[in-house]
């Protein structure tokens, strides 16, 4: 086996312009700056929504009202927690990853429409302001699903209208971003990179974008009607005047069910990258992974009414139950492909890998409870209980957020040029994993025992379980500070990452960290297989990248050293 040669880091590469904080605070059309803007804004809202979650758990320590002044205040609390986490954290965060990585992975200089890209980000700022300003106008209190009549005649504050306008802006931002992704991926791949040579993250973003462009307009339609009902005196959702609340439920879920795939598909893409790189093995079933994303995107449009089993015409329940269960097939294909990727790999337990493994284990639980909920009799039994809360957090936190964390640890060195401390990362993982599991797993049990969701006052027999849940939730909250500390430490004096600290084959690593203004020094040539780890030629390609762009400071027991696997190992 060849030994690692260490040439002078960054020899012959002109130094990139050093970006200052102020560069991130103003309008820029560079996709990397926009990506960081997305991610930083989303992370701010993650902390905000997390603080609200802590207040929810504080309130639920006792079966009576104590922290909140009344039920309305509690309603506002969980409404804002969910709205912020879904629309201001996970969706923009995934868009941030996409913005930063897609052009780099495709070897492009920027997105197809840089100006539109900046506009899409800057729409998020007024949207966030509107959401928060709602607190001064009688905050939204109808839940993130905003079912009428709760969101119409029973929401007197203007905050609900602000909320609807904020979501309108976020929807437009999403659509503009998605158009940009589709065009970039379709038209700007480098020579020699067909669709089936793209990194799987690009496939995931493509599938996500297809869902966004086709589903988000339905949200726009629904919100327009809601706003008209609230401010213009129409009565689309008022049965006493010939309207129908089911109109909202149908149209809202026709967007919002596909939206759950908008939130998790990019996570699937991150997982494929991280697992393959840190297990030093080609992904198992590349085509299956790529096409199952597309299958999920398409099937996702056929299942919306499974959110309405208790309110819809009974004859329609079975078809929607069947389609909902079919979704488990492409998802299962992914899970087994990832397991196949790990099988026999040389697994490095980096923080990114740990979070990816955390995703695999927790998302499977969320998937199984999803199939349980798809079964009509079971769903009717646990409808609107904590079982549903548990399920959605297993897929959204155990799925999307774990994937985001994995992606953060994986790409942080590329974005900042510095490593995150691996030991702190492992501590962060351990606290998050334990805190997460004991926050959300017991919610299955309280839900099946009959505790309804969205209540501040509950039957005293649920208190013991609720205390366990709250204490674990506080642990989960604390775990975030470990990450914040690690980030601060890395930015102030983290180890230099070099171009390719994980020795990955995708194109974003074949340039300096952080990449220069137009991303690459000359025209990048992609390695023929983005996941061809363990071959002699991949090894030589990686050596070449190291020689060209320089290696970072190494600490051999923490950072994986290159390993040759397979026949020649």
């Amino acid at each position, binding site marked *: 086996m060849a030994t690692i040669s260490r040439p002078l880091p960054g020899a012959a590469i002109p130094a990139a312009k050093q970006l200052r904080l102020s560069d991130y605070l103003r309008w820029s059309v560079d996709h990397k700056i926009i990506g960081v803007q997305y991610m930083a804004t989303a992370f701010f809202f993650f902390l905000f929504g997390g603080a609200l979650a802590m207040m929810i758990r504080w309130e639920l320590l006792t079966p009576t009202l104590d922290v909140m002044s009344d039920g309305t205040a509690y309603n506002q609390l969980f409404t804002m927690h969910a709205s912020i986490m879904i629309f201001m954290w996970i969706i923009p965060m995934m868009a941030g990853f996409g913005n930063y990585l897609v052009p780099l992975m495709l070897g492009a200089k920027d997105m197809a429409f840089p100006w539109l890209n900046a506009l899409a980000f800057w729409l998020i700022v007024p949207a966030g302001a509107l959401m928060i300003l709602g607190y001064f106008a009688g905050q939204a209190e109808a839940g993130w699903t905003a079912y009428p009549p709760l969101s119409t005649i029973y929401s007197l504050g203007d905050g609900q209208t602000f909320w609807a306008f904020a979501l309108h802006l976020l929807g437009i931002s999403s*659509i503009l971003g998605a158009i940009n992704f589709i065009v970039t991926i379709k038209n700007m791949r480098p020579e020699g990179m067909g669709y089936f040579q793209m990194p799987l993250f690009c496939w995931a973003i493509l599938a996500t974008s297809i869902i966004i462009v086709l589903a988000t*307009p339905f949200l726009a339609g629904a919100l327009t009607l809601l706003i008209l009902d609230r401010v213009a005196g129409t009565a689309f959702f008022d049965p006493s005047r010939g309207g129908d609340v089911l*109109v909202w439920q149908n*149209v809202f879920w*026709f967007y919002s069910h596909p939206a759950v795939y908008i939130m998790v598909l990019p996570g699937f893409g991150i997982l494929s990258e991280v697992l393959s790189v840190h297990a030093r093995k080609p992904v198992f079933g590349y085509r299956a992974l790529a096409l199952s994303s597309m299958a999920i995107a398409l099937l996702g449009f056929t299942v919306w009414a499974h959110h309405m089993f208790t309110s819809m015409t009974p004859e329609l329940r079975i078809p929607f139950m069947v389609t909902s269960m079919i979704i488990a097939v492409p998802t299962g294909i992914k899970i087994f492909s990832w397991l196949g990727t790990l099988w026999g790999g040389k697994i490095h337990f980096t923080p990114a890998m740990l979070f990816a493994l955390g995703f695999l284990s927790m998302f499977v639980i969320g998937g199984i409870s999803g199939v349980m909920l798809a079964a009509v009799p079971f769903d009717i039994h646990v409808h609107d209980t904590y079982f549903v809360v548990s399920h959605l957090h297993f897929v959204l936190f155990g799925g999307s957020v774990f994937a985001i964390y994995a992606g953060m640890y994986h790409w942080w060195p590329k974005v900042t040029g510095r490593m995150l401390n691996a030991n702190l990362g492992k501590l962060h993982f351990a606290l998050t994993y334990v805190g997460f599991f004991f926050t959300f797993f017991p919610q299955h049990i309280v839900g099946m025992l009959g505790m309804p969701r969205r209540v501040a006052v509950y039957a005293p027999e649920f208190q013991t379980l609720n205390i366990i849940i709250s204490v674990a939730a506080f642990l989960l909250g604390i775990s975030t500070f470990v990450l914040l500390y690690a980030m601060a430490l890395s930015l102030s004096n983290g180890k230099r990452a070099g171009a390719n600290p994980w020795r990955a084959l995708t194109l974003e690593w074949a340039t300096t960290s952080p990449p220069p203004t137009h991303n690459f020094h000359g025209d990048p040539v992609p390695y023929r297989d983005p996941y061809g780890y363990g071959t002699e030629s991949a090894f030589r390609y990686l050596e070449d990248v190291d020689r060209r762009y320089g290696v970072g400071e190494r600490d051999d027991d923490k950072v994986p050293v290159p390993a040759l696997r397979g026949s020649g190992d």
Partner: protein
Amino acid sequence: MDTQLSRQERMALANRRTGLFIFQLSWIMVFVCLTFVNLQIRGNFASWPPEGVTSLNLFLPTLATAGLLLSAFFVGRGLRALRNHQRAVFLTSWQIALGLGFGFVAIMAYEWLSVPFSEQYSTIFRVMTGFHAVHALVIGIMLALVYHGARSGEYNATRHWAVEGTTKLWYFVVVAWMLFYVILYIV
């Protein structure tokens, strides 16, 4: 001044074309959404229009629809003429198309104002036609601005993305209207 497009310009043009196509595919879904809303609301009534509400008169809207279809033809004819270096044909075609488009908006504005109030039947009618009219107006104004620029010679047979883009957007207005026309007046 007929020059060839550079590689970068060709790339930008390809991106714009794909981008506009995806946008049309996406935004038409709002119209599909409103169509579903209309269908679901009318499903709750024994008859549509509901009892006691008089049906809408078909004559004027059908005339407007015919005019709109004709305007789409003229807009497209103009684009083809511009590509074939027939500037005069292009300008006349767009003049006619603009006139027809204005007629459509005027007739639909009259329809919007004159539909008698009858709760669901008239409000969904007004939301749908109003939503469409916003698009017809905005894109119509874009059409007029591009026409104005074309008169002062801003576009030629190779470089005319603004002409092509607004033409395709006007097609969008027409397709969206055909969907609504069928739902509001025919079925």
